[in-house]
């Protein structure tokens, strides 16, 4: 599918915002990338979620490199957490087909709001 010049500008501007957020907050850029793939590139949900990982990987690599070179990485907690993330990732990938999409989305949204409120205090 060809994109209009306007759509390309939308991709550039919002992807730049996603990159800045990912570097500044250490994550969160993927949510914007998924939304862009859905709304501008017109991919279906599962293609958007999968392709977003491809876009988020390089910007996470460069963000992580900056954090590393500026001395913000504490390797012991990082390695333990990464171990858990990888194990959980496999379980999540297996669970995906067994759960109802909207129920998961609402639970996820409520967890985010609760997390946001908690972080204010």
């Amino acid at each position: 599918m060809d994109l209009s010049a306007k759509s390309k500008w939308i991709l550039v501007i919002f992807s730049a915002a996603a990159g800045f957020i990912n570097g500044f907050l250490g994550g969160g850029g993927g949510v914007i990338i998924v939304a862009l793939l859905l709304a501008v590139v017109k991919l279906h949900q599962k293609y958007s979620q999968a392709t977003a990982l491809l876009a988020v990987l390089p910007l996470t690599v460069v963000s992580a490199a900056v954090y590393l070179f500026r001395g913000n990485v504490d390797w012991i907690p990082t390695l333990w957490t990464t171990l858990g993330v990888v194990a959980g990732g496999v379980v999540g990938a297996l669970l995906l087909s067994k759960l109802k999409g909207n129920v998961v989305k609402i639970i996820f949204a409520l967890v985010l709001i609760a997390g946001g409120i908690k972080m204010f205090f």
Partner: protein
Amino acid sequence: MQTFLLILFGFLSGIVGGMGMGGGTVLVPLLSFLDLPQKTIQAINLIGFLPMCCIALIFHAKNKLLKKDHIWWMIVPAVALAVIGALVADKASNQALRYCFAVFLSAVGLWQLIVAIRFIISEKKSSARSEDKSSDDTADKK
């Protein structure tokens, strides 16, 4: 105890991440329960994401779910601004980063909630319409 919690929090956010729903947005608030500076938490989130992302991409490539058209329009500006974002974060205080993350998280949560509720309402409306149509068809046949 902290090691157990680190693995547990990583595991829980990994489940969400493995479902392709942004595990990082769950991991950061969970790790904020532990006594860690915000910049360390953000670095854990970035580095922890990398191996899981690589594994997931291998699966997605095998399942032909990756659509690479137009992706460079996204990657190039995102990578450039990610470097700037990470450098700005280095200069910012841990407290300021924590508040910024809290605002971002609440906004994304609210947005996702609205999208999910809208989708449920539109699904119910379309199923009610198809039920009406099938009952009309049955009445016509009689």
